[in-house]
């Protein structure tokens, strides 16, 4: 044996203190440090990208929650409004106030803004109507009202233009700059919280556009999605984990679920278009179809999470319940499901968050419709938050950039809250058996 091992024996013991060896080890340690730095660098690149993304969106978006308004001294002149003051107090007076000629009043009043008379938003007369409807005694009286200005003036007031640039490349005309300067000088301009942005629906004018309609559309859509996907997902997970006999059926179902989980979302949009719209004839652009489509999309996510959660409940608990005479169904519904619930909830929240952020399939079933009303029900045309982001980002008007970013901010806050809740639930209730 030793004779055969001669080559190694001849080599003699390794001299670890030789220069060659010391240098080699130093080199290896350098490589080690560099590799470690490389890993950290990769993480930092990903993190700084996220930081950069958030930074640009916050920078562009926070002003989206504000809007500029001009001060008007309004005299609610019944003659201009075309309203008989005597008739207002009687029955049907409300209707009279609602249909009065406010645009004419606005036109007459805007003259006091002098050169800047045309800076008011097209829909500024709505604020006049709102004021009068809220307090009919103002009829014939004088009142100070703040009304929204056009988007270009709004952006000037927020400092979004580089005024030192030559006038043909800065995106705003000299006349508009002059109007804005006049309003500022006359102290007729203020910038405040934009309530219409939170409560209103889409509009062609950036200063009037809001995300309330889209938010409600998202709410309707998600309600449908949850109502379908949660019971279906949990119950099919129960069947697969607890009752499915080993065989082709369970295999096919499992294969379907695993693949559905990885099918591109846009394919679900094609399914929605071909099946729910064209064959089943459900209403286009509606939260109903959107909700069903998204439910099919996130059901696999819920099934997979629920199966993992159910699987992690130890068999001893099932045995204990079976041992005192519970039926298999009672075991599942009394013991296994309650114990698996935190895991199921985590998966469900992640699935819902995905549905909330999803746009592509909804594009194909027509939820990109321009909807200027807050939706009233699940069968009416509606849009959803991410779709609103997409639509506004497509708009050439500069005023929509801050609206887009502001809408993204709201979407991100909701999503981060949901994901954090999921992560918290997972960590809080993660149980080792």
């Amino acid at each position, binding site marked *: 044996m030793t004779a055969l091992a001669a080559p190694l024996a001849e080599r003699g013991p390794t001299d670890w203190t030789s220069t060659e060896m010391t240098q080699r080890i130093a080199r290896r340690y350098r490589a080690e440090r560099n590799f470690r730095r490389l890993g*950290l660098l990769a993480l930092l690149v990903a993190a700084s990208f996220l930081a950069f993304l958030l930074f640009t969106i916050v920078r562009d978006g926070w002003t989206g929650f504000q809007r500029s308004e001009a001060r008007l001294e309004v005299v609610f002149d019944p003659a201009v409004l075309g309203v008989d003051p005597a008739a207002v107090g009687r029955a049907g007076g409300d209707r009279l106030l609602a249909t009065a000629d406010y645009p004419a009043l606005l036109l007459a009043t805007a003259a006091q803004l002098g050169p800047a008379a045309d800076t008011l938003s097209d829909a500024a007369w709505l604020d006049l109507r709102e004021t009068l409807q809220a307090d009919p005694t103002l009829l014939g009286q004088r009142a100070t009202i703040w009304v929204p200005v056009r988007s270009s003036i709004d952006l000037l007031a927020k400092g979004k233009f580089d005024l030192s640039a030559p006038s043909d490349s800065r995106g705003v005309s000299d006349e508009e700059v002059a109007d804005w300067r006049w309003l500022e000088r006359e102290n007729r301009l203020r910038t405040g919280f934009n309530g219409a942005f939170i409560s209103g629906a889409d509009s062609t004018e950036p200063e009037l556009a809001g995300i309330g309609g889209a938010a409600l559309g998202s709410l309707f859509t998600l309600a449908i999605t949850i109502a379908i996907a949660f019971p279906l997902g949990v119950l099919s997970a129960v069947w697969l984990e607890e*009752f499915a006999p080993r065989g082709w059926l369970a295999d096919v179902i499992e294969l379907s679920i695993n693949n559905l989980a990885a099918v591109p979302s846009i394919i679900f949009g094609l399914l929605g278009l071909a099946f729910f719209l064209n064959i089943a004839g459900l209403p286009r652009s509606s939260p109903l179809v959107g909700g069903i489509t998204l439910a099919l999309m996130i059901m696999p996510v819920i099934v997979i999470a629920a199966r993992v959660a159910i699987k992690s409940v130890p068999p001893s608990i099932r045995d204990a319940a079976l041992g005192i005479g519970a039926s298999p169904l009672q075991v599942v519904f009394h013991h296994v499901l309650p114990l698996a619930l935190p895991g199921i909830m985590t998966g469900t929240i992640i699935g819902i968050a995905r549905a909330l952020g999803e746009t592509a399939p909804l594009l194909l079933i027509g939820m990109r419709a321009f909807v200027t009303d807050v939706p009233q029900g699940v069968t009416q045309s509606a849009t959803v938050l991410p779709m609103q982001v997409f639509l506004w980002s497509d708009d050439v008007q500069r005023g929509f950039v801050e609206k887009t970013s502001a809408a993204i901010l709201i979407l991100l806050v909701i999503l981060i809250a949901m994901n954090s809740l999921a992560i918290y639930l997972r960590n809080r209730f993660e149980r080792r058996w």
Partner: protein
Amino acid sequence: MRLLIALLLVLGLAGLAFLAGRARGERMAVAAAGGNSRLGTIHSRPVHHGAYVALLALAPALIVLAGWSLIGDRFVEGQLIGTLAPAEQPASRNDRQALMNEVRGLVSGDLPTAFNPLAARLAPAYAAASANADLLAGALAVALLCAGGLWGYSRLRPDFRARNRVERLVRAVLLLTSVVAILTTFGIVLSLIFESIRFFRLVSPVEFLTGLQWSPQTALRADQVGASGAFGAVPLFWGTIFIGAIIAMAVAIPLGLLSAIYLTQYADPRLRRWLKPMLELLAGVPTVVYGFFAALTVAPLVRSLAVALGMTDASSDSALAAGLVMGIMIVPFVSSMADDALTAVPSSMRDGSLAMGATMSETVKKVMVPAALPGIVGGVLLAVSRAIGETMIVVMAAGLAANLTANPFSSVTTVTTQIVALLTGDQEFDSAKTLSAFALGLVLFIMTLILNIYALAVVKRYREAYE
């Protein structure tokens, strides 16, 4: 609305059936026990008897109502159109739909007046017919409910195995919920194949799969440029692979893999506890946000870079901008797959290498990564499948021009971009342009399906190897 009332009525009656069944069960229990409460004389508990009766009552009624809500309106519609003289009948599906929409609008009061006099004429007839039909369906449902409930009630005996029957039914319901996944898959496959076949009747599959020209716009006038419409999808496939599988992966694989290595091997556990959820949050950002960022921020940067490099025809919707952002989007996915794969390598292997005097980086490069390679490759394939199916980033940041180019600064288009472009806006049903979207969808579905099945098999085999 009328159906909703019927549904509430049916549910209410089923509730009564439950109470009746339970009450009878309780009476039987009291009678059988005869004062002493012992188990065994009655097979099922009163609540099971109640549930049994209620389910027998509810199931047929619900089936009738569900069926009617799906087909009822079409049935009425068919009857109504049938009453029209042949000359008045709408010519196409679209016309018919428009007419019926108007009729429904008139009936519900959403439309104050009719544009089409035919609709005005049909409205009262429609209202009457649909009210009659709904009433009929409701009556049928209630009748079935009563019959089912009474039959169930009559079967209750002390030794009747109500619990077993109820449970068998619940298990059947569980099975049905699982079958929804299969139905969804079938629905996808069928709708894609059905529409694709219609497309391939108009355009040969060979041209579609091998043609180098893509211009789906069918012109209004015959003498317009590209009037014929060309459906060679190769430039789309190339664009998809170029953005999703080449540029995005060139970003995502190194970043994701190195992050995973750092997180699993080097990072302090406390740091890891913070960084991992951060990466997961990055994965939760909606793609439309990435798309907005790509289009508004990254694309202009890439374009100025191209101009600085001396490219005069730099595109503002370059493949590079879309690919870069998509790569960043995929990083958390690649990282978490690589993380799983690396953690699955037995620690004895790591210890074995460290005990030989290897540094950590040598251990990672020469032992851990090779050992985890199948898992990592599987994860990367899943990431590729996700990238080529990703829609919003490319819709917002990539172009519509179907170029066959390898220059990352020029514009290419992808399968998903084209699907969206073809199916949004004005749709002409049955035109080759609209149908081609489904053919593209079919190709995308098959591509991702193959990638997923293969990748999942690789990952599964890999996990089993170390278990």
